[in-house]
Structure formats: C-alpha cells, structure tokens
C-alpha cells in the first residue's frame, strides 16, 4: 500500500515535470527571437546610409524585414523610453538619419562610442518615415 502511494506520487511529480518542460519549450519557441535572427545572420547586404535611403525610396520592398548592414556617422546615442538607440547620419548630410534600436547586450560598446565616429550597424530594416528605421541592431565595426 505504502509502495503504491510512493509510486503514485512519483508518477504525479514526473507528469508535472513533463508538463512544465513542455510549457517552457512551448513559450521559448514563441518568444520573439528577432535579436537572435540578427546575431545569426552572417551574410547581409551592406549600404552607406544615403544608398539605403535611396534604395528604400525606389520602393525596394525586398529589403524590408531583412537584415542589412549600414555604415554611418554617430550623430547621437540616447536612452529614451528605456531603449538604447544610435542615431546615424550620412557624412556631411545631417538631414539623412537612421534610427537604430540597439540590442541590450551592446551597452559596453555603446559607452565607448563617440559623436562623429564612423561605424557599421547590422539590424532588421523596417522601412523609413523621415528617417530609416532599424530594429534589433548590433554594432559590427
């Protein structure tokens, strides 16, 4: 009798553990993985900021939602709305900007950035309003 209670408890515990594992796997599968997509993507189209804007103006919709690498001049680094953002400009053209929302693991690199520094950023190209918008960005160079 005692053995059967022990066995039943073991069964319930292992059943609960299985459910918990399944739940963890299920929720991790459906968590937004855009950061990982950018990290894993090694071959990307490379642009200077002005070229990217021109490509978007030509309604090149193939580029949207893809990982691209863009080169520009650091205009500003800010932490508005608890997000880390780099504003890039084109050399000699401060009216052409890119707003790059940076991944959380880039904080050390962000601290060392200087205004006017030329850098490359890799991220998911979302499109443009007045400025080009990239999300889930990584500083590559």
């Amino acid at each position: 009798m005692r053995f059967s209670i022990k066995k039943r408890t073991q069964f319930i515990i292992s059943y609960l553990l299985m459910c918990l594992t399944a739940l963890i796997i299920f929720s991790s599968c459906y968590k937004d993985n855009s950061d990982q997509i950018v990290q894993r993507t090694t071959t990307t189209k490379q642009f200077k900021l002005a070229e990217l804007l021109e490509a978007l103006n030509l309604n090149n919709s193939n580029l949207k939602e893809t990982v691209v690498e863009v080169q520009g001049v650091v205009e500003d680094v800010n932490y508005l709305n608890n997000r880390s953002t780099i504003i890039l400009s084109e050399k000699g053209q401060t009216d052409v900007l890119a707003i790059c929302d940076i991944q959380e693991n880039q904080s050390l690199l962000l601290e060392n950035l200087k205004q006017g520094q030329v850098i490359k950023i890799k991220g998911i190209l979302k499109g443009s309003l007045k400025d080009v918008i990239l999300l889930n960005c990584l500083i590559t160079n």
Partner: protein
Amino acid sequence: MRMNKFLLTLLLIINFGFNEKPEQVISRQGKVSFFSYTSVENIKAENNQALSIINLEDGSIAVSMLMNTFVFEKALMKEHFNESYIESDIYPKATFEGRILKFDSSIKGEQTRIIKGTLLMHGVSNELEIKSKIENNDGKYILSGTFETLVKDYNINIPPLLAGNIAKSIEVNFKFEYEPYEN
C-alpha cells in the same frame, strides 16, 4: 549716421536671432503602445520610433508610424498583428493629422488640451478627440496621453476562433518628446 544705422540693424538681427522661437518641433522617437486585455490573454506592444511634428504657431500636429515597428513579447502575436489584422504589407503606416485646440506654446509648465484630428489606420479614417497633457520645460515640449479605440472601427477582421483573445476596445498610450525642427 551711417554707422549708427548699421549698429541698429546689427542689434535688431542679433535680437531677432536670440529671441527667435522655433516654428516647428519634432519627435523622431515617439512612444506609442497599445494594450488588449481579455480573460484569455493580455497583449501589449510598443512602438518607439513614431514620428511627430507640431507647428507651434497654429497647434497643428502630425504623427506617422510604421506598423511593423511594434515590438511584441511573442513572435506569434507580432505575426498575427502584421499579417492577419493590420496587414502591414498593404497598409505600412498609421497617420494622425489634427490640431491641438486652444494650444498656447508660450505657456510654461503643464497644460491639458484636446487634440482633434483624423487617425488613418488599416486604410480606414476615423475622427478622434484625445485629451492630452502638454509640458513645456523651457521650450522642450512633451506630449502624452491615453485613449481607447474600437477594433471594428478600423475594419480589422478577427477570426471567430480568436475573438476571445483580442479585446473589442484597445487602450492606446503615447508619449512624444520634441526638439526644435528646422526643415
């Protein structure tokens, strides 16, 4: 005499230069978030790249945002939002054009005003009146507020199977921090 005239002109230019207020202010990283509360699940998404320009002279305001820049906690929510509900391929932007009623840009500190205008989303335009708080901290303007909007007003089709997961009325919050804009 000629020298005096020159000095007077110079003084006027300097005076105008220093007292000149910007006519327009811009916010490139406006925050717009929405919440859907149901007993089945809560859905929250945030857009931190909304663009807005205010004309300080007449209080006219314009907002534009890319629908695919909303960030969701779960990939599946983002997929459903962009592909099934908002159809961001077909309707990539949402825009708002309106006027801040009785807006006085010279008032320092806080003022609560009604913004009246048209929200265009998913190809459907709706007139809105939104109560907003405007802060003026030495020429740095912050606009914030909350409003509720109905999903059915924007011709968004939700399959009956998922109807319980999405609230009929969505709460929208916004906050824009502006800086002088010269175009």
